[in-house]
Each structure stands twice: as C-alpha cells, then as structure tokens.
C-alpha cells in the first residue's frame, strides 16, 4: 500500500468540515481520489496527470465550485490488485466524491465495477477502454481524454493516405494494446504483415526487432506508453531499422516525456494527438506557461487531460451549487461541461466519451532548437468513437 500523500490546502478547516458534515443538502467540502501510476515504466504518464490536475486546483485556488477540495493521491504501481485495494479504501474509508487519474485500461477495468456500484463519478484523465464506450457504458464514467482507439485511428488514416503497403504493428498484450490494433486497422486497410504483442512492462525488444527486420516493413506503427516506448524507439534506432522503415505512433508514444528521454533519434516521427502545446487559445497558453514555470518541463498531453479533468469537476460542482448527493443533477452538470478545455472545444457523446478533432504532429526542432512536436494539420474533425452505438445510454 503505497504511502498516501495528502494535498490539503485548508487542512484544519477541511478536517473539521469533512468529519462533522452530515448528509445535509450542500456540503462544506469535497474529496477527490486521484489514483495513478507513479512508479515503474508507466510512471511518467501518471506524474504528468497528477501535476496537471494539481496545477488546475492551484488555478482554482483550492476550491471546486466554491467547496474546498481535498485531493488524495495514491500510486497504483501499475498493478491491478494494488489499485483494487486503494479504491476500496477511497470508497469505504475516505468516502471520496469523485475519482480520477487512472492511466492503464487494464487497471480501469479491474476497479471500474466497485466505483460505479457505489455511485461515485469517475473522471478518466487517460484510460478510455472500448468496453466502457460500448455495452458496459455507465452514467458514472466520464472520459476527458479519448476512447483508446481514436488516436490510433487517426494514425491509421494518415498511413493509409500516404500509401504505405507493408505495415508491422507492435503493442502490449493488455486491453489498451488490443484497442490500439483494432483502432489502427479500422482506417488502415492495407497489408499488415504482423501484429506483435509484447508483455506489458517489457523493456528489452531485441527479439521483436529481429523479427521486424526479417519482415522488412515500409512502416512500423507501435503503441508502447511511457518507459516502454522510450526503450523501443532507442533500440529501434540502435538496430538501424529507422533507415528503411518509417516509425509511426499515437500521440502518447511520442510526447514530451518520450522526447525528453530519447531526443534527436525521434526527429521526423509522425504521430497524432487531440492536443499540442502550441495550440493558440488563452487557456492553453496560461496552462503551458504555468506548467513550465512550476515543473520546469513542457506539459505532455497527459498533463492537459489532468488539467481538464479538474476543470470539469469544478464546473459541475458549481452548476449543482455543491449538492453532490443529487447524482442525477450532477450527471447532467458533468455532461453540460461548462468549462473551456485547453484543447479548444469538444463535447461529450452519449457514452460520455469526447467528440473532438485529431491533429497530425511531426517531431522537429522549434525556434530555440528544442526537439518537440509541431502541429501539421487536422486528420479528423469532431470525430466520435466507433462503439457509441452499442451503448444503451441516450
């Protein structure tokens, strides 16, 4: 059980407030359980979500919709059973009002049922499994990031347009990985010579790279989040494969966390994303500037999703004027999303997944010579996920 880190801005007031409050109409404070992967190869993603979320809390000076906010952060160590115990503690001991933060879909699916059964709203800042977009969709699940397939669909569309003939796909063997393969092939209808599944958390890709070399693909699409992606790209370049195969990845395998670790070898790599740090809207400029000031690094798309998740909670609590126990009103408030997202506008589909634009990015050098992403153009506008039809919610 990882050490829990309390971020309480009004510690004394809050403790008094939360312990004495009875179940009367509007409460005097609010608790959010942020459960994310803060150690292991996926740690970079979880840390960015946490920092983005905390930055938003700071911008809202510690209040969601006027209520003082207590954010409890727990590291799930990328292990389903650790997450399961943390969730049990959030629901029964801390009795949190909202939950957010989970990075990996396999953990999301493992802890989803107890959260939804206890009628606690989960605002996903990353994991968007196809199950919760389709037949298992639930009023208590909102996703401010994407449905897992979307980014892969965008890359599939681009690879199809560019006329690549022989593609190899690489992804970890977990729900997120399967969604990636399905998403890519939904829009890329060319020949896929091999779908390579690796172990989640695997770091040495010698065997897979040898296999890729023997297949001689003209393009390789990989979805390997965090440290896994970092090692794959480094070893891909070290094996000399980048000479004759063009590397493609969804946004989250080619964002700031990966660029910071790999650097130059990633120049010229195409990827897709729904957000980029060079988007020119007021919220995004303030978010990118303050994030760089506070944390000394460019925010990744995970940070933007953590930030938006906090803004969504704030907007919804303000709409219901603190009456958190009226679940129906809270659900409508969340669906209405009265807040401006850093990625520009998007709206929720009936299954509470976002309908938004997806852009093409390429990694190049910016004005100061730093290796970073540059937005090229739009691949999809107002793109919805492919599972909404199977969802019974209207």
């Amino acid at each position: 059980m990882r050490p829990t880190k309390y971020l309480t801005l009004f510690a004394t007031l809050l403790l008094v407030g939360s312990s004495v409050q009875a179940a009367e109409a509007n409460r005097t404070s609010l608790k959010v359980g942020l459960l994310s992967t803060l150690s292991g190869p996926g740690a970079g993603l979880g840390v960015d979500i946490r920092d983005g979320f905390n930055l938003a809390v700071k911008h809202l000076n510690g209040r969601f919709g006027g209520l003082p906010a207590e954010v409890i952060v727990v590291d799930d160590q990328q292990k389903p059973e650790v997450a399961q115990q943390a969730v049990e503690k959030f629901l029964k001991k801390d009795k949190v009002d909202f939950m957010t933060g989970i990075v990996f879909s396999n953990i999301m699916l493992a802890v989803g049922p107890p959260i939804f059964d206890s009628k606690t709203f989960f605002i996903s800042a990353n994991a968007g499994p196809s199950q919760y977009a389709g037949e298992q969709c639930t009023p208590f699940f909102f996703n401010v990031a994407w449905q897992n397939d979307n980014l892969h669909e965008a890359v599939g569309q681009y690879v199809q347009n560019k006329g690549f003939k022989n593609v190899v796909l690489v992804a970890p063997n977990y729900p997120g990985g399967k969604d990636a393969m399905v998403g890519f092939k939904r829009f890329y209808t060319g020949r896929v010579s091999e779908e390579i599944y690796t172990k989640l958390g695997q770091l040495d890709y010698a065997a897979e790279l040898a296999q890729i070399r023997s297949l001689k693909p003209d393009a390789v699409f990989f979805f390997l989040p965090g440290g896994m992606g970092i090692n794959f790209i480094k070893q891909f370049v070290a094996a000399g494969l980048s000479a004759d195969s063009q590397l493609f990845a969804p946004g989250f395998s080619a964002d700031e966390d990966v660029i910071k670790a790999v650097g130059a070898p990633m120049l010229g790599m195409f990827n897709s994303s729904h957000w980029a740090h060079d988007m020119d809207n007021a919220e995004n400029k303030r978010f990118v500037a303050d994030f760089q000031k506070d944390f000394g690094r460019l925010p990744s798309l995970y940070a933007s999703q953590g930030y938006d998740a906090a803004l969504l909670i704030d907007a919804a609590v303000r709409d219901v004027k603190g009456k958190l126990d009226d679940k129906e009103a809270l659900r409508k408030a969340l669906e209405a999303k009265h807040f401006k997202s850093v990625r520009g506008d998007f709206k929720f589909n009936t299954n509470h997944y976002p309908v938004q634009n997806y852009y093409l990015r390429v990694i190049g050098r910016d004005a100061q010579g730093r290796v970073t992403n540059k937005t090229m153009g739009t691949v999809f506008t107002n793109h919805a996920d492919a599972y909404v039809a199977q969802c019974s919610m209207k």
Partner: protein
Amino acid sequence: MTQLILEQALNGLQFGLMLFLLAAGLTLVFGIMDMINLAHGSLYMAGAYLAAAATQASNSFVVGIGAAMLATAILGALLEITLLRRLYARNHLAQVLATFALILIANEAVRMIWGAQPVPLNAPDALSGPVNIAGFFYPAYRLLIIGVGALVAVLLYVLVTHTRLGMWVRAGASNREMTEALGINVRLLFTIVFAFGAALCALAGAMLGPLLAVQAGMGESILILAFVVIVIGGIGSIRGALVGSLLVGIVDTLGRAALPSLLSLFLSPEVASNFGPALASVLIYLLMAAILFWRPEGLFPARA
C-alpha cells in the same frame, strides 16, 4: 532467414553473458559459505543506479561504470562484514528472510534517494547505431555487452583456475572446513569474494541499464534467473555458472522467438499464439526441474 537466427542467437549470447556476471558472484557466495543471498539482485540494482548517477556526473560511460563497480564492491564488503557474516551459521530459512528484508530496504532506499520514476541511463552516443558486418546488422551496444561479458568470463576463468586466490576459492567451495584447517583466512577470503561478486553485479547493472530501465525492483526478476543458472550449473562451480548462464540465455531467448512459430506448424494458430509464449517462459524452469531430477547436485557439482 539466417539473419534472424544469427541475430536471435547473438541476443541469447548477450543475455547469457549478462546472467553469468550475476551468477558468478552468486554461485561463489552460495558455494563457499552455503548462503542463499536474495539481496544479490539488489546489488545489481545499486550498481545500475550508481552507474546512472556517475555517468551523469562525469558524462562518460566508462568512468560511470568504473565508479559504480568500485562503489558497489565497497557496499558489498560493508554489507558482508556487518550483516551477512552473522548469517553463515544460521539455517537457510533465516538466510532467506534476512536477505528478503534487505530487498525491502534496498528498494525503498533507492526510491527515497532517486524517486519512484526510472532514472535515465543511456548508452554512449557513439554506440547508439547498428554495426554492419557484410550486410548483417546488429546493434553496436549489444556487441559491446557481448565483448565485455566474454572478456570478464575469460578473466574470471583464468583467475579461478590459474591463480592462488582462485585455488583458495575453489578449495573453499568444495570443502570450507578443510580450507580453514589449512590455515586460510576464509573470513577475509570470503569478504573479497563477496566484494568481487558485488562489482560484477554492478557491471551487469550498468551494462543492462540502458537496455532495460534503471528502476526500483529491477533486481528481482533477474535474481530468479541467476538462481536457476547456478542450480543448473552446480552450486559453487564457476564453470557450472558459465555453462548454466549460456544455456539459460540461449534457451530462453530462442524459446521466446522460435517456439510460437514452431508450435503453429502443428497446432492451430490460435492455440499456438496462446500456448507458445506460455511454454517459452516456462522452458527454463522445466529445464531446471529436469536437471535437478536426474542430477540433484547440478551439472558440475563443486562439492564432490
């Protein structure tokens, strides 16, 4: 097709030689002092972290590795003198638990000092590309690992078989009481052996750091493989550790690469893709159980 087989064989060799660096130290500790040291993986982790820190400080890969090996050797010697020395007389359950406690302490200490996120340790830029030998491409860094591993193996083999210290070590491994009776200060000998083993762990940690990730808990999985190696090779025997590590390295790598496609020849692709990786990951343990079944003392038992 030959490119694939040759490349996979080299991968197996590289993994085997790295395993040997761990197994060599472990088999001597086990053989001479009959001590199960679960914390051997933690020394490997400490070496990787120290190498990462030293490389960043001196931004030279070689200085980084040298500093890490020295520091881990000293750490190993200190650990041996203060704690492990009290465990020799104790039974194996006590040894397993004391060193298990060391794993908990080491993982948390590393998290305290370097944080929960993996620490970057990159191969030197010069070696970040492939080497082209007559059309055969292979990552230069992995060739370096094979080279270093082979060199250390030869050096160790010469040291153990042709030097006085080596003779004492082998004597200690086959019969500790007699060695003590011959007036050899086994305590001091053992501290040297332990420190030397720790240095080898640091070398393995530093070399594998760029390929894997330098993070808390990295020692645990490779530790089990090292135990499998020394049990197959015969506890206490360097030759056994070398043969065992190459065997495990190649069987594990080729198994993972060839088995799924091999099985799909006569099984349905669905079953093969499911059963292949399962069998591959279980292969080395089956190998170990089989060897223990027919030769309960391993292939080259040190204790004749």
